[in-house]
C-alpha cells in the first residue's frame, strides 16, 4: 500500500513542480486541490482493491492460507471450525465435588422435600455432568436439549433437564415476544432459569431446596414479552403439565399449573445495574411425594416470589472488580391434605403458608478471584393437630443456613470453589459442611444471562 501510494504522489509531485514555474498563486491553489482530490481517489481505490484482494485471499482453501502464514514446523492444513455451521453446537459441563459433613442427616424441620433438595453425597463424587446440544432449527425456531448424567441409588441415570423449542424473531411475532415450549428451566425468581453450573455457590439456597426441589423444570409453554419502554420491562406467563415440584401427579388433563411474571431493570450510571421481578406459580398437586416417598401432599399450591439483583463495577470494568448482590423471597400457600406414612398420620387437612428467603453478596476483588456470603432462612407453617409429630411438624423452629465461599476462575471455562456451610435445619442439630468443587466447560458455551 505504501509503495503504490508513494509512487503515485511522487509522480504527481513531479508533474506539479514541472508546471509550477508559469503558474500564478491561484492556479497553484487550484492544482493543489486537484492533486489532493486525485490522491484521495487513488487512496480509496487502493483501499478498495486491498480489501477485495484480502477477500479473495480469505476465500482460498484453508490449506493454502495456512501454508502462507504458518511457521515451517506447523505446515499442515489448518482446520477451520466455524461454530459447526450446520451441526448443533455441543457443550459439556464437567462438575465434581468433595463434600464433608459433620451432621448425619439434612432433614428440614417443617418440610418434606424431594431428592434434589437434599444435600449432596458425602465424600468425593461427580456432580451433574451436563450435555447440551443447541441450534437454530430454521428461520423461525431454535431448539436446545440439556441432559444431565446423575448417580442415583448406585446407578448412572440420564435426567432430561431441558428439551425445548423457542421462537426466533423471524417468526413474525410482535417485536419483543418469545414463545418457548417443551421442558425448560422456567422464568421464576433469579436462580431458577439458570443452570446450576453458573451459580455463585456450590449448592442452592434453602428456599430453592424446599419449594422447588432445586429448580422448576416441568413440561409446559411460556410466553414472554419485552415491553417497548425505555428501561427494561418484561412480562410473561406459562402453563405447565404439573408434574414437577411444587406440583406432582399431574392429572394429564391439560395444564395443571400456571405462572405469570413481571420484571423491570436498568442502570444507575455506567457501572451499576439492577433487576427486580415478581412471579407467581400456582396449580394442583395431584400427589407430591417428599422425604423419600414417605410424605404425600394433594391439593392447591401457590408460590409467590420476588427477586432483586444488583451489580456494581467499582472501577468501571466488571472484568476487573465487581460486587454482586442478590436476594429472593418465596411465599407458599397450600390448601389440601398431607399424609406422613412413616408417622402414620393418615390424610390430614392443611391450609397454611410457609415462607423462605435468601440474600447473598459476591465480591470479585481480582479478575480471577471472588468471595461470597449467603444467608438463607425458612419460616415454617404451624401444623394442624393431625400432623403433630410428623415430618412436617417443626415445633415452631425455623431452619437457617450460612454459606461462605471463595472461588478461582482461571478462564471463563473453568472454576474451582471452596465453600463452607453452617446449616441449622432442625432444632439442636447443626451441620457443618465443607464443599470443594470444580466446574469446567468444554465446547460451545452459550452466553450467560444477567
Amino acid at each position, binding site marked *: 500500500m505504501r509503495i503504490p501510494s508513494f509512487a503515485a504522489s511522487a509522480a504527481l509531485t513531479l508533474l506539479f513542480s514541472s508546471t509550477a514555474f508559469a503558474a500564478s498563486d491561484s492556479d497553484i491553489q487550484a492544482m493543489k486541490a486537484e492533486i489532493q482530490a486525485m490522491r*484521495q481517489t487513488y487512496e480509496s481505490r487502493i483501499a478498495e482493491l486491498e480489501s477485495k484482494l484480502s477477500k479473495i485471499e480469505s476465500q482460498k482453501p484453508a490449506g493454502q492460507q495456512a501454508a502462507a502464514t504458518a511457521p515451517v514446523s506447523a505446515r499442515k492444513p*489448518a482446520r477451520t*471450525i466455524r461454530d459447526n455451521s450446520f451441526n448443533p453446537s455441543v457443550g459439556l459441563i464437567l462438575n465434581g465435588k468433595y463434600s464433608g459433613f459433620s451432621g448425619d442427616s439434612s432433614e428440614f424441620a417443617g418440610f418434606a422435600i424431594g431428592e434434589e433438595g437434599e444435600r449432596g453425597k458425602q465424600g468425593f463424587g461427580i456432580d451433574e455432568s451436563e450435555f447440551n446440544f443447541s441450534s437454530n432449527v430454521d428461520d423461525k425456531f431454535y431448539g436446545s436439549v440439556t441432559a444431565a448424567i446423575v448417580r442415583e441409588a448406585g446407578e448412572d441415570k440420564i435426567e432430561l433437564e431441558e428439551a425445548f423449542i423457542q421462537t426466533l*424473531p423471524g417468526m413474525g411475532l410482535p417485536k419483543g415476544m418469545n414463545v418457548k415450549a417443551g421442558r425448560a428451566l422456567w422464568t421464576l425468581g433469579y436462580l431458577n432459569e439458570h443452570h446450576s453450573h453458573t451459580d455463585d455457590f456450590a449448592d442452592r439456597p434453602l428456599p430453592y431446596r424446599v419449594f422447588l426441589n432445586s429448580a422448576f423444570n416441568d413440561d409446559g409453554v411460556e410466553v414472554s414479552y419485552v415491553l417497548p419502554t425505555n*428501561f427494561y420491562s418484561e412480562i410473561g406467563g406459562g402453563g405447565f403439565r404439573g408434574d414437577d415440584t411444587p406440583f406432582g401427579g399431574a392429572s394429564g388433563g391439560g395444564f395443571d399449573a400456571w*405462572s405469570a411474571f413481571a420484571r423491570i431493570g436498568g442502570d444507575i450510571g455506567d457501572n451499576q445495574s439492577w*433487576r427486580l421481578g415478581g412471579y407467581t406459580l400456582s396449580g394442583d398437586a395431584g400427589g407430591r411425594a417428599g422425604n423419600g416417598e414417605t410424605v404425600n401432599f394433594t391439593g392447591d399450591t401457590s408460590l409467590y416470589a420476588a427477586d432483586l439483583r444488583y451489580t456494581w463495577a467499582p472501577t*468501571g470494568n466488571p472484568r476487573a472488580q465487581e460486587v454482586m448482590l442478590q436476594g429472593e423471597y418465596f411465599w407458599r400457600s397450600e390448601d389440601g391434605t398431607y399424609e406422613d406414612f412413616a408417622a402414620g398420620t393418615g390424610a390430614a387437612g392443611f391450609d397454611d403458608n410457609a415462607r423462605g428467603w435468601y440474600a447473598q453478596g459476591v465480591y470479585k476483588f481480582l479478575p480471577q478471584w471472588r468471595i461470597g456470603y449467603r444467608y438463607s432462612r425458612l419460616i415454617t407453617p404451624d401444623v394442624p393437630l393431625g400432623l403433630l409429630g410428623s415430618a412436617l411438624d417443626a415445633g415452631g423452629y425455623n431452619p437457617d443456613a450460612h454459606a461462605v465461599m471463595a472461588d478461582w476462575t482461571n478462564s471463563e471455562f473453568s472454576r474451582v470453589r471452596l465453600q463452607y456451610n453452617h446449616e441449622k435445619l432442625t432444632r439442636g442439630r447443626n451441620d457443618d459442611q465443607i464443599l470443594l468443587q470444580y466446574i469446567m466447560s468444554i465446547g460451545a458455551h452459550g452466553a450467560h444471562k*444477567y
Partner: protein
Amino acid sequence: MHRMLPALFFLGLMTAVPLSAQAKLNLFACEPEWAALARELGGDDVEIFTATTPRQDPHHVRAKPSLIAAMRRADLVVCTGASLEVGWLPILLQKAGNANTQPGGAGLLLAAELVPLLEKPVRLDRAEGDIHPEGNPHVHLNPHNIALIAQALTDRLKTVDAANANAYQARFDVFSQKWCDATQRWEQEAAGLKGAAIVVHHKAFSYLLAWLGIREAGVLEPKPGIPPSASHLEALLQKLTLSPVRLIVRTPYDPPDASEWLSQKTGAAATVLPFTVGGDAGSNDLFALFERTIALLKGASGD
C-alpha cells in the same frame, strides 16, 4: 379458572401498551468507536445508544437489562464481530426479539467482516487462551479499516433509513475527505515510529502496530485473555534486557500492575493509550483518538 387470572391480566396489559413511534433511527453501537463513527455519518438523524464504556473490556460485558431494552428498540446494530461480543450479544439478539437486527439482515453490521483480519489462529484450541477463530477482532485502530467500515455503514444507514439517504451520503462525502487527509497526515507524523518496538498488555493494538510498522516485542498476557503471570513476566523481562523497548502500552481497562512492574524493571514508559473514543480526556472523536494515540506513542518513545 382463577389461576389463569394473572396470565389474562398480563395479556391485557400487553395489548394496552402503545407502540411508541420514533422519528429518529435508533442505532445500537456495541463499542464507543462505532458510536463515534455513527455520529460522524448519522449526525442528527440517528439516536445512538452505546453498550459499553471505554473503561469496559468489551470481551466481558453482562447482558444486562438496559441492553435488552436498547436492543429491542434498535433499527441498526453496529458491533465489532469476530466473536468479540460472543459472551453477550447473542443473548441480547435473542431476548430482544427484534426481527430488524438479526444476523444476516441489513440491521446488523459487524465491522470485522468488512476488513482483512490479522492473527487468524492456526491452531484452534482453548489451551491457547481466549482466541478468536476469525482472527484478531480489534480492527478499529487502523484508519484504513475505519474508511472501509464508514463506507459500509453509510450504505446500511441509507438502506435502513432511506428517507435520509442523501443526508447520510453527504455526511459520508465530507467525512471520507477529512478522514483521508487526516490519515495521510498521521502517516507522515508517525513515520519516525516505523521499526520501533513496543510491549502491549493484550493484543488490542495489532492493527495500529501493523499500520504504523511498529514491532510488537512482547505481550504481557501469556495467552490472549489470560492475566499476566509472574513466570511469564520474568521471562519477558529477560528478553527485554537483551533487546530493550521504550514503551509498554495498555488500554484504559487493562489492570496497571503488570505494566508498571515491567516499567520499573526495564525503564520503559508504561502508557495508557485511549484505545477507543472517550478513552482519555482528549479523545472525544475518532480524529482526536488517532491524534492522541500517535502523540502518546511519539511522546513516550522520544521520537
